[in-house]
Every structure is written in structure tokens, then in C-alpha cells.
């Protein structure tokens, strides 16, 4: 039993990261129909920038804030330089553009940073907290708590602010959004900036547990994409549940079957969803497209 609990906690911790990546996919997808495969690079930029800034002597909170800002700028540039000029292109073209951007950002990270693995000190030490026979790293609480705060902030943004509702309106009906005076190009840029910030926060929180390097984004994007598909592409609640589910499946698979196949779980989830559950667990989002 303690073993199961242990697997669940580590599964939920990585799952929270997948959930944040999946939320990033969802926000951009809803605002612009783009499936952004550079989403994992935001996570990498968050982790790597914080690592290098702290190594240069910047205090952790400041380094983390700076890393989020760097990711937001990269998100904005990605939209302005790569997505906006291709407005009206087919979804496949846009996906290829984001894959290209992902490769480019990885290459850039090799040059700007390096090719090593890096870690950050855990925010509240490494003394495990004993709970029901399981040992939980304090950093796990940072990851889970951080994810919970982000979900709450997003919820308030979309439900309580006019600009948040403008983003939802753009997702629901782009033509009508433009006709009421919403600058939909701004909304799309905003969705890239928000997704970048969310990814970066995830990267900063999880680096003390999983380490980071210039190329962690690729696998994270894949797992976040699996999570988003499992939850139903475009559905924020689905993204969170899907992320936690993929994390749990991975941890249980690694624990009870073999850790060799850990990374295959996400592929299997994608295949199962494609064949058996094309709408995902929560069906297509309540978003209507014309």
C-alpha cells in the first residue's frame, strides 16, 4: 500500500506538469486553432533560464520571474514572427511551423545555454515528508500547489475578466468576436504569451525533481499533447484531468511493469484516444466551431 501511495504522489507530481503543458496547448488551440508543438520549449526555457540566472548569482525568486518573462517574450515572438504571418494557412502547415519553431528553440538553447543536464536546489529542502508510509518530497507540494494556483488564476481570468471573456468569445466565434470590436490578433498573441508563462512556471517548479536540459521540451510536448487529447482537445478541465491521468499511468506503469516503458505510455494513450475515443474523455469542448 505505501508503495501504491508513493507511485501515486510521484505520478500526480509529473502529471501536474503535463497538465500545465496541456493547458498551454488548450489555450493556444482555442484562441487560434494552432496546435503548438513548441509548448515544451517554454518549459525548458523556464527551467534553463532559472538555472543559469541563479548560477550567475541572481536570487531564485528573481531568476524565476526573469525566466517567466523571457518565456513570455519568446511566446510573443513566436506568434508575431511565425504564426501571424501564416494566418489563413492550413492546420497542417501551422503544425509544421510550430515543430520548426520547437527545433529552432532547442538549437538556440544549445548555443545560449549548453548541452548538460542541470538541476535547481529544492525550494524547501530535500527532507521527505512521511505520509501513510510514503516519502513525499517537499518540492512535490510546490509543483502541485503551483499547478493549483495557475488553474485558479486561469479560472478567474476566463470567468471574471472582460478580456478573459473576449478570449473565450474569440474561441467560440472568431467572426463575431471581430464584429464586436475584439482585436483577435491581440487575443491570439495573448494566448501565446499566457501559455509561455504557464509552461515556464511548470519548468521552474519541476526542475529540482526531474532536472532540465536544452531538449526536455520535446518529450514534455508529446506528453502534454497526449494529456490534452485524452481530456478532449480544447477543453481546459480535460487538460488538467488528462495531465494528471497520464502522469499517474506513467508512474504506475513504471512502478508495477517496467520503467523501460515509461515514456511509451504517452504514445499508447495517444493511440488509444485516436482509435477508441476521438473526442477525448470530456468530448469536444463546449466550444462550437463554424
Amino acid at each position, binding site marked *: 500500500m505505501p508503495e501504491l501511495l508513493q507511485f501515486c504522489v510521484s505520478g500526480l507530481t509529473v502529471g501536474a506538469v503535463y497538465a500545465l503543458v496541456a493547458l498551454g496547448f488548450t489555450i493556444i488551440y482555442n484562441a487560434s486553432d494552432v496546435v503548438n508543438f513548441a509548448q515544451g520549449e517554454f518549459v525548458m526555457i523556464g527551467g534553463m533560464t532559472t538555472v543559469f540566472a541563479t548560477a550567475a548569482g541572481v536570487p531564485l525568486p528573481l531568476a524565476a520571474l526573469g525566466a517567466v518573462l523571457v518565456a513570455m517574450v519568446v511566446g510573443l515572438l513566436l506568434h508575431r514572427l511565425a504564426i501571424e504571418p501564416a494566418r489563413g494557412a492550413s492546420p497542417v502547415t501551422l503544425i509544421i511551423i510550430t515543430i520548426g519553431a520547437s527545433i529552432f528553440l532547442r538549437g538556440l538553447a544549445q548555443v545560449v545555454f549548453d548541452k548538460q543536464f542541470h538541476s535547481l536546489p529544492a525550494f524547501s529542502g530535500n527532507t521527505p515528508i512521511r505520509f501513510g508510509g510514503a516519502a513525499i518530497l517537499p518540492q512535490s507540494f510546490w509543483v502541485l500547489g503551483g499547478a493549483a494556483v495557475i488553474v485558479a488564476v486561469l479560472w478567474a481570468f476566463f470567468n471574471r475578466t472582460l478580456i478573459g471573456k473576449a478570449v*473565450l468569445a474569440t474561441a467560440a*466565434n472568431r467572426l463575431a468576436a*471581430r*464584429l464586436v470590436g*475584439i482585436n483577435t490578433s491581440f487575443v491570439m498573441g495573448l494566448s501565446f504569451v499566457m501559455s509561455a508563462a504557464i509552461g515556464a512556471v511548470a519548468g521552474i517548479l519541476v526542475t529540482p525533481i526531474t532536472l532540465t536540459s536544452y531538449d526536455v521540451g520535446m518529450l514534455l510536448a508529446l506528453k502534454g499533447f497526449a494529456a490534452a487529447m485524452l481530456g478532449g482537445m480544447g477543453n481546459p478541465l480535460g487538460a488538467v484531468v488528462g495531465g494528471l491521468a497520464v502522469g499517474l499511468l506513467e508512474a504506475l506503469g513504471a512502478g508495477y511493469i517496467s520503467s523501460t516503458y515509461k515514456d511509451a505510455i504517452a504514445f499508447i494513450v495517444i493511440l488509444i484516444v485516436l482509435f477508441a475515443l476521438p473526442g477525448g474523455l470530456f468530448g469536444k469542448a463546449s466550444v462550437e466551431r463554424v
Partner: protein
Amino acid sequence: MHSTEPLLRVEALRSAYGRIEALHGVSLSVAAGEIVALVGGNGAGKTTLLRTLSGVQPMTGGSLSFQGRDISRASPHARVAAGIAQVPEGRQIFAPLAIEDNLRLGAYLRKDAEIASDLERIYSLFPVLKERRRNPAGGLSGGQQQMLAIGRALMSRPTLLLLDEPSMGLAPVLVDQVFEIIQRLNREDGVTVFLVEQNAFAALSIATRGYVIETGEIAIEGKGSALLADERVREAYLGV
């Protein structure tokens, strides 16, 4: 004909989908305070014209001016801010959003303090929207969605209201109601109306002036009553 500059002036307007031109040089004008009807058959270019006026469909030639200023290159949001609102064909409500959010988004660009009182005004115009204001707009019937689309456009406090086939798909009672409201807005609030309709009789009956559009060109123009009496119009559009 007009001593003063009209509110909206459209000159030799062209618009195309790819290489296929849908508007071949449309010229018309709408004076402040008028209800101007644009009638024509399916595929004549009415929707294309309205979308071009709102800036959501590119124009390939000609010019547009509103309140004497050239708006040919203005963004859609700049046109809304200038006072042009549109009730689009097929209503195009924000289905997953609450009814009240749909209306509030109609006032997206407004910063004044009277948004709440305008919302109440819309609710008094369309009481059914108030009853269900917290529900997703997608649950409304077709007629109610049309009311919502009109209410949403009014929330921007437009000077010029563009309506694209507001009677389409509505039961006759509702059609009467919609046309009554359009007249009331024009009379009581001084909203200038440019009304696109396939229902030529109803539209021309309430219109000051009217235009007939055929395959992307204005074919006939005149007073509303004159068009109702026009032989060609009667044959082609009124089924008489």
C-alpha cells in the same frame, strides 16, 4: 441629391474571394437617420457587402467613408469604435458564453459608465434574455438568438446598425416583432439602419430608401415605396 455628406458613402466597392469577384463596383449611400434596405436574391453579394463594410472581408477596390472620414483601411475594431455595428447573417452568437456575457461583449470597446443601464435597456426590449441571462446563449431558440444578436450589436451604441437578414428562419410573428424593433430603434434612438433582406416586402415597407443588388452590382435604387411599386422589383422579389 443630398446637400450634406451622407453618414456612409460606398463608392465603386469591389471585393473578391480569391480570384472570384463577388462585388463588381457597388456604390450607395446612407444618410443619418435613414432606414436603407438592400434586397436581392441568394448569392447576390449582400453578405459580402456588409462584411466588407465592417472590415472583416477585404476590399479589392473602391472606397468607403463614414462620417466623412475614409475608413477603407480601418481595422474591424476601429470601425466598431467609430460607431458601426453589425448583426451578422446566421446570428453568430457566442454559444458557450452566458447570454449576459454576449451582451457585455457587445460593449467591449466602451469605457463609459452607462454600460449597466444600457444592459437594462436591452433587457426591457427583450425580457426573455433577462430571465435566462446566466444560461449559455446556445440554448436559446432561433428567434431569441436573433434578439440576442441585435441586443449585442446595440450594446456598442452604434451610429449605424448593419443587419444581415434578421428575419431569416423566423416564424412570421417574430419577423413582425424584429421589424418593429428596428423601426423603434430608428425612431426613438436615432440609430441609422442599413438592412439587408431577402424578405423584400417587409424590408422595403419600413425603408426610407432601397437598393436592389444583382450579382454584385446595384441594379435599381429608389424610395422604399417606389421600389415596392416597381414592376421589375415586384416580379423578381415580391412574387407578384
